[in-house]
């Protein structure tokens, strides 16, 4: 069977890697090419770059960043953030992304998912979903970096996106993002049980146990950011721990 993937995520703003807590208080964490290349050498299975630039001008760097990272990267690259139409996705794919992630624009215009899947294939079309726990039950889709609640149920939204041709779900727990308190495993279970496309767990990773629990809950890949950027651990040592625990990752 395919091995579970460990995917370092670079949040990029104006061409620089940043990291914050719950999408806020972003601080500089380095150059995307250097970082992507370092994680590749550590054994990363894939790289995700999310452009979090607030301005159109800042987002203009995303194509350039994608192209520079592609030159050094011999593993898959997913790019997202600010993709609003097919042309945005095309520009990123031509620059060297292998997959494109859509988020806010797809919530506002779900037809975008079908357009992307039809034009580039489902395996190129990643739906990124930011999920916030609701007081009563379940999770609500939030957009615009968590600033806007949509009232949409996360599981139902993902099911409809899969029907429209999304090939992979990048599932971020808004409550856990950057907190290092572990993935929201109930969220992962609920989503993985509802669709048969791959689910990437995101938000809250601190150690190999967290990764293991996310994978046991049905994720086929795990996104990691803070602990790598802060130098707490490396992809390599996380993989070694997973291997020791009997989880077959790519060595």
């Amino acid at each position, binding site marked *: *069977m*395919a*091995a*579970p*993937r460990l995917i370092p995520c670079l949040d990029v703003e104006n061409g620089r890697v940043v990291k914050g807590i719950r999408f806020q208080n972003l601080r500089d964490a380095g150059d995307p090419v250097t970082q992507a290349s370092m994680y*590749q050498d550590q054994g990363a*299975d*894939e790289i995700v770059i999310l452009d979090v630039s607030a301005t159109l001008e800042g987002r203009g760097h995303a194509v350039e960043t994608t*192209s520079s990272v*592609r*030159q050094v*990267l*011999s*593993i*898959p*690259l997913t790019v997202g953030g600010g993709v609003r139409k097919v042309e945005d996705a*095309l520009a990123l*794919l*031509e*620059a*060297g*992304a*292998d997959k494109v992630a859509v988020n806010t624009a797809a919530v506002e215009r779900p037809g975008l998912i079908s357009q992307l899947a039809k*034009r*580039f*294939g*489902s*395996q*190129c079309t990643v739906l990124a979903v930011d999920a916030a726990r609701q007081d009563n039950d379940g999770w609500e889709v939030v957009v615009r970096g968590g600033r806007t609640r949509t009232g949409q149920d996360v599981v139902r939204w993902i099911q409809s996106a899969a029907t429209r041709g999304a*090939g*992979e779900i990048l599932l971020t727990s808004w409550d856990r993002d950057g907190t290092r308190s572990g993935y929201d495993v109930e969220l992962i279970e609920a989503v993985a049980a509802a669709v*048969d*496309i*791959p689910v990437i767990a995101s938000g809250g990773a601190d150690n190999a146990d967290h990764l293991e629990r996310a994978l046991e809950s049905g994720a*086929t*890949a795990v996104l990691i950011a803070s602990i790598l950027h802060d130098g707490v651990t490396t992809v390599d040592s996380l993989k070694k721990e997973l291997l020791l625990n009997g989880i077959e990752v*790519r*060595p």
Partner: protein
Amino acid sequence: MSRSPVIVPTGTANTASVNAAFRRLGAEPKPAEGPCEIRDADFLVLPGVGAFGAAIDHIDRRGLREALVDRVEEGRPTLAICLGMQLLAERSDESPAATGLGVVSERATRFPQDLTVPQLGWNRVVPDPRSRFLEPGWAYFANSYKLASIPDGWVGATTDYGGDFVSSIERGDVLACQFHPELSGPWGADLLDRWINGEGGRS
């Protein structure tokens, strides 16, 4: 002089990863303009992202079919990647009405329903020991369809995803991979290097 693999346009934009991978090996990839270039190329790459029917349409509208079939039949240096490998088959369940290149008597079928599809990720490749290009190792896959058996007269590799499927076939200097060598790290780079810079690479 650096070698120049000619890349067949299959209608989807994403050849950037393939181009970057060859440039890292010192080769200078260039896009194919028409059938003559496909016929004459020392090295030809048939990439493939997207749907079977759309890619075959694209090939037929540009009149590339005959040139592609001929060079594969002749065993000239040709690398087919992912969908590119499936295009060699007679047909695919993905687009039942479309006629594939038909150089292998196979049909591309979908992975079973109980699996996570598409298969997106790294999986083990187990090559026939007679393979000229492949070493055992881990490769990156992004596919929902695959060939179920190795065609007669070809040497192959298999991979397990809910049962064995064909992850690669080769004959002469033709190499077809269901995985993406350009995204398969150092293992994939070595494979591309053997194909383009290897001793048997130039016919």
